């Protein structure tokens, strides 16, 4: 993984010291809360309902075991013994005090970590495929490019006060595991006619109040031109983007208002000016960064026999293997998803003790490397198949081996009204009740791939629009009301879910989801995914089941 040199280290330490000064000026009263707010946000510090929350950056979701141990120490020392992994592949600590934040940042800097640009109207953490570098279907490892984007976007002087937050995702395989269609900029890697690295560039995707899928702006962008093209897009956005209305200030609104063709004309005109500037990437810098992502040395002669035998002997191991393993480009190896979704648990939460234990397992089984996924799980990406059974037993004893990746209990949920000052309803208790109920149904009927995401407000942090079943918590006349969308997807076949009908109360929502699933089971073809059945039959049977046939005229 990327290792800081003295320049990277210096910047992170100086930024921590700078933030220490900003906190001191807030505490002394020199800065008002209004002045401090945009400053603290761009360093990941939120004021939530009960406490400050610090969101720590995990660039493109990649962690070393020693960084994971540092997160565990922070969880113990400054929080209540746990942390919460987010859909942006970051981690947040929900119970920190303002006074402690500078110390936390120093502790982070000591392990090459920081909270730079994890919030605020600036360029956020660039996200990517959690299987980057090891996926069997990959064209090229996107992580060096994500690191190049990280460096370019860090403390970018021109784009530190954008109209709104800005999120970039990059995917290196034909199968999209980075949800590029719902990002401000989505980059999908491909090879040019002469085998050279390039990107198809998408722009203007996003969720929130106005969900939109990104539109293609450039079919092929040579790798060396990546930063100049990003800079051109950001510059057009900075000048042309709306600042009068919070909900209309994302780039998706600008692209939609101008039309993609007009927007492209503006970007290409800007790009013509800067394409041959110092932003052009030099081959030796690309090579330097690529070298830091060299894959670990693999044993070419792993015997897969024991793995097959154990699956045959142990049904629970077989079930976990079927659900939580991903094909590896290196024969005899697998990428393992560590589920942070125990049945009835809080999605994405992890105790300090489990963080430490997982760091040890990463050292023992996966070259000391851990990845955070945008589904709020973790990945050990380099595991020998002949050691999978031992790893599984160790994970199982830590309650980290729920066999549910992309299944109905792999629920994505935002912190919701239990923590977040923006939330209009609770997400976590709904996720917990749903998980407990749906685990039983999945046990009996093998529901296969079925994603459920729960957002506690229209800002859509849990990406409910692109879940097969999305749940949005709103407030109606003083009570929580949960609106259900069906048919979203963030994969290659990306789509925005459609609202099924009126919302459900907090005491009705679990039963409503169960009704949807029971209805589906009656019309499901053998082995069919929920999403495919829905696309085949449409929403009507589900609407009828939820609201009765009489409601059809509504």
């Amino acid at each position: 993984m990327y290792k800081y040199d003295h320049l990277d280290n210096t910047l992170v330490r100086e930024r921590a010291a700078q933030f220490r000064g900003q906190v001191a000026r807030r505490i002394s009263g020199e800065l008002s809360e209004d002045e401090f707010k945009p400053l603290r946000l761009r360093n990941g510090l939120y004021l939530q309902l009960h406490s400050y929350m610090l969101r720590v950056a995990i660039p493109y979701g990649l962690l070393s075991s020693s960084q994971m141990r540092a997160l565990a120490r922070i969880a113990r020392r400054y929080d209540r013994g746990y942390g919460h992994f987010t859909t942006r592949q970051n981690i947040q600590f929900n119970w920190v005090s303002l006074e402690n934040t500078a110390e936390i940042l120093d502790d982070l800097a000591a392990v090459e970590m920081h909270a730079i640009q994890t919030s605020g109207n600036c360029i956020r953490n660039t996200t990517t495929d959690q299987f980057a570098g090891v996926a069997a279907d990959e064209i090229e490892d996107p992580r060096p490019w994500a690191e190049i984007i990280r460096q370019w976007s860090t403390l970018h002087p021109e784009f530190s006060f954008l109209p709104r937050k800005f999120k970039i995702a990059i995917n290196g395989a034909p199968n999209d595991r980075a949800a590029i269609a719902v990002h401000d900029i989505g980059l999908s890697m491909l090879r040019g006619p002469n085998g050279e690295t390039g990107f198809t560039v998408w722009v203007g995707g996003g969720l929130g109040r106005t969900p939109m899928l990104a539109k293609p702006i450039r079919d092929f962008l040579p790798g060396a031109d990546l930063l100049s093209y990003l800079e051109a897009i950001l510059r057009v956005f900075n000048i042309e983007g709306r600042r009068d209305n919070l909900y209309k200030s994302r780039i998706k609104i600008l692209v939609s208002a101008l039309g993609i063709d007009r927007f492209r004309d503006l970007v290409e005109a800007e790009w013509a000016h800067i394409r041959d500037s110092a932003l052009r990437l030099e081959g030796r810098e690309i090579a330097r960064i690529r070298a830091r992502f060299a894959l670990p040395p693999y044993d070419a002669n792993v015997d897969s026999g024991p793995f097959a035998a154990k699956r045959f002997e142990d049904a629970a191991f077989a079930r976990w293997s079927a659900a939580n393993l991903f094909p590896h480009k290196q024969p005899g190896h697998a990428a393992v998803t560590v589920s942070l979704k125990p049945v009835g648990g809080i999605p994405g939460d992890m105790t300090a003790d489990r963080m430490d234990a997982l760091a040890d397992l990463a050292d023992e089984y996966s070259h000391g490397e851990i990845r955070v996924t945008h589904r709020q799980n973790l990945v050990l990406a380099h595991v020998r198949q002949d050691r999978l059974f031992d790893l599984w037993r160790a994970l199982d004893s830590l309650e980290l081996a729920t066999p549910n990746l992309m299944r109905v209990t792999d629920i994505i949920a935002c912190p919701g009204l239990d923590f977040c000052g923006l939330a209009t309803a609770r997400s976590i208790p709904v996720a917990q009740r749903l998980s407990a109920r749906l685990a039983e149904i999945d046990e009996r009927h093998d529901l296969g791939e079925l994603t459920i995401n729960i957002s506690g407000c229209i800002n859509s942090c849990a990406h409910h629009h692109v879940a097969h079943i999305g749940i949005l918590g709103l407030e109606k006349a003083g009570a929580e009301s949960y609106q259900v969308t069906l048919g979203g997807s963030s994969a290659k076949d990306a789509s925005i879910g459609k609202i099924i009908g009126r919302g459900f109360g907090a005491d009705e929502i679990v039963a409503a989801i169960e009704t949807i699933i029971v209805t589906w089971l009656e019309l499901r073809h053998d082995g069919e995914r929920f999403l495919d059945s829905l696309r085949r039959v449409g929403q009507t049977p589900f609407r009828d089941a939820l609201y009765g046939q009489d409601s059809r005229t509504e």
Partner: protein
Amino acid sequence: MTLIDYRNENPMVTDDAWTHVAEDAALPTDRPATLSLQRWKAAREELYGRNLSLGVRLESHERVEEILPDLPRLALIALDFPNLNDGRHFTTARLLRERYGFHGKIRATGQVLRDQIDPMRRCGFNEFELAENKDTASAITAFDEISVVYQPAADAQPTAAQLRHRQSGPTMAG
């Protein structure tokens, strides 16, 4: 009124020699003055003949492209920041320096905090009027807080990538 003057790589606190002339006020005859974009556009032909240092003030929504032909005549362009969230003029300053070759002063005015002036400097600003009640003298240390830059901008500071490869000659990506 004091301001921070960042020239020759050396920030200092100075008294402001300039007057921001209000819409209906008379132009001073003895000191440099800035005008609003509107007033400049209305009076520029007449002002061209005067032997006086002049500047134009641009609000955050106003674009520098409106005064491109006038740039050689202008000694200062004041770019206004109405609040902490409006960063359009970071781009304006870079365009002035890097695209339009403006060598005069670029001044930041409005809600300017010490926390913004270093990125502003990197974008080409060299004068800073801090927001009311903010301590100008202590703010000049803000330029020393971050010494490493990752991206090229309007300043001459070498980027991290340039420093890393300084030893050998340039090669381009294939």
